[in-house]
């Protein structure tokens, strides 16, 4: 099993009022950066890098970074910079980028070059992951939403080719045009760094990942719809002529461990405080649904079962009718303690190692992932909160999870190659895989 660590690196600023229960509205894409404090930013970037170094010391296999734009809940706007620094200051852990937002790159050759440099500096520890991004990202970098999926696929095809095909060559696609592709940098890993695909709701993306045999990582979705999405991946894999295994399944979930149950609850409640991801149930941020749900960004009939989840749907702004129907059907439920609610359905697992480990086991038994990431140190959690948890992860949780994984035969993608036999399959498909990038990019 592959065990990784993740935090969104929130911009925690008590003085601006955008942090903690200060009462100031946290409206996504509705806040000015006039109150951004670069000195505080400097402290936070360095804090998060330090915590990653310690996470590696504590035994994590991977350090996951993500990327969002124009929002305080994630400082990883240019996560490739953080990755490049980690490549130099860590030694063993994989640097897992989940993921670069391909459609917002107007020049993906830059991305191919950057990632190859990171892979070389880390001596082959880069895991690259690619996403389509949310409405926020399309707005922030002004990428045309209806062409998001086309651009994702073409950028993917182009970057893989730029990494693997000896240059110089020409690329004339629908969205990208190059007369001279010959980057003077190549990935350290052969034929290129592993590609993992994170996501939450697009059936297109799951099917696409399964066709490419890329591991698919569900990001903090509820257990049952996550399982159904993995099953959909398995179905597509079967249609493609291979059997998907645990190495194709990844799952990110919120796990915090602490010295006492009291401390664990105090820190665990901070998941839903401060500038935590407004996608997430119960936090204090607000999204504007029409911006998340931009025209043509996702085909309306191609949503995964995760969208049945109230939290996911409401937070992504696609559930207005569903919510209205619910409102008509039944009186509103009494207000709930969202932290308690989420701990009951294991959306948040926070406790001492003794109480956390059985819950992690339940998740592993239910989903059978070969890759997991513990999402910790987020929302309003302090550096001390994170460091206590990392220590206990190292001493108690990670060793216990490794034993469990052996017992449950949960192999990660560095134990079973998820792309095995795919070269033979690709050779069979060769007549269809024309060299013309324009035809490859068509959907």
């Amino acid at each position, binding site marked *: 099993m592959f065990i990784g660590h993740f935090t969104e690196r929130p911009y925690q600023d008590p003085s601006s009022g955008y942090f903690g229960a200060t009462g100031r509205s946290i409206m996504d894409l509705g806040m000015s950066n006039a109150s951004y404090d670069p000195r505080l930013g400097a402290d936070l970037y360095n804090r998060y890098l330090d915590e990653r170094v310690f996470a590696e010391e504590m035994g994590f296999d991977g350090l996951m970074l993500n990327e969002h734009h124009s929002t305080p809940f994630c400082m990883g706007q240019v996560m490739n910079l953080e990755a490049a620094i980690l490549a130099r200051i860590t030694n063993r852990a994989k640097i897992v980028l989940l993921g670069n937002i391909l459609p917002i790159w107007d020049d993906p050759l830059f991305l191919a070059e950057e990632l190859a440099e990171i892979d070389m500096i880390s001596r082959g520890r880069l895991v690259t992951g690619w996403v389509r991004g949310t409405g926020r990202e399309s707005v922030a970098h002004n990428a045309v939403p*209806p*062409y998001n999926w086309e651009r994702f696929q073409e950028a993917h095809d182009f970057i893989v080719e730029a990494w693997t095909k000896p240059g110089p060559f020409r690329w004339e696609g629908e969205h990208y045009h190059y007369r001279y592709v010959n980057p003077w940098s190549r990935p350290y890993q052969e034929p290129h760094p592993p590609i993992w695909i994170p996501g939450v709701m697009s059936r297109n993306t799951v099917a696409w990942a399964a066709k490419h045999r890329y591991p698919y990582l569900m990001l903090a979705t509820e257990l049952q719809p996550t399982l159904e999405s993995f099953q959909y991946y398995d179905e597509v894999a079967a249609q493609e002529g291979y059997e998907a295994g645990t190495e194709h399944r990844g799952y990110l979930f919120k796990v915090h461990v602490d010295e006492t149950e009291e401390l664990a609850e105090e820190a665990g409640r901070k998941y839903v405080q401060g500038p935590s991801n407004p996608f997430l149930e119960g936090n204090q941020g607000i999204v504007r649904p*029409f911006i998340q749900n931009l025209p043509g960004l996702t085909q309306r009939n191609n949503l995964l079962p995760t969208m049945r989840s109230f939290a996911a749907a409401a937070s992504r702004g696609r559930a207005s009718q569903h919510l209205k129907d619910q409102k008509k059907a039944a009186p509103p439920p009494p207000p709930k303690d969202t932290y308690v609610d989420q701990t009951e359905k294991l959306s948040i697992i926070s406790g001492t190692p003794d109480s956390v480990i059985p819950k992690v086991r339940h998740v592993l038994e239910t989903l059978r992932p070969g890759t997991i990431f513990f999402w910790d140190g987020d929302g309003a959690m302090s550096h001390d909160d994170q460091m206590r948890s990392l220590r206990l992860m190292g001493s108690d949780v990670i060793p216990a999870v490794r034993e469990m994984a052996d017992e449950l035969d949960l192999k990660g993608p560095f134990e079973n190659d998820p792309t095995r036999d795919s070269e033979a399959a690709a050779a069979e498909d060769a007549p269809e895989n024309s060299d013309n990038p324009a035809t490859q990019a068509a959907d």
Partner: protein
Amino acid sequence: MTDDSAYREGELALATGTIKYLEQGTGSPVVILHHSWGSPGWLPFHDRLAEKHRVVVPDMPGWGGSERPAWARDPRDIAIIMTRVVSALDLDDVTLVGLGFGGYVAAEFATMNPSRLASLVLVGAAGLQPGEGEILDQMMLSHRKYIEDSFRDAETYTGYVGEEPPEDVRQLWDFSREMTARVTWKPYMFNRRLEPLLGDMQVPTLIVWGGQDKVVPFECARQFEAAIPNARVEVIDDAGHVVELEEPDALAGLISNA
């Protein structure tokens, strides 16, 4: 004079896809290009015009019942197809009316194929980058807010649409917005390559603006007037951006006398 009691539905098979349109009346032809949120169907405004004209209301390609040209990435692509529509219907001496985004397409049309046009009517037309202010960006607003802002005031909006838009109307708006984004996400609702081409466009042009238009700044009316050799501006004080809904008689009167 109308000789039919109801409009007819027509269909054209072009190589670029099927075009649906509504039609009524006889006389000199008036072709009306709809707003970015699609054609809402046959309107009192069309009835007024059909008393004197053959009125043709197409769904532009990718909107309503007309097939989406997946390759189209620019309002100019839509305008090219609309020139084919007018040719295929063999319409001459056409009064081409463009409403909002439809005005953008109509202006592009006129730069390319003026020979079939008798006059051009731009109503709250997009297409030029405002010298002052910005065109209201529907991509950053809910459907409801954008349509509401297209009316002179909230009461008028509610009078037309109701407190809650019906499901089919919401779907029309959603579907239309996607096509709008496909051709004019960026730059939003203008083309810097349009204004230079208007200078040699000799079609007499009437520019109509609602005095309460909150979608396209009035500055654009003056910019069109300055760019087009034979153009004049009329303002309908009490209308917002959707002049054809709020002041159908006044607008139809201006068009018939254009």
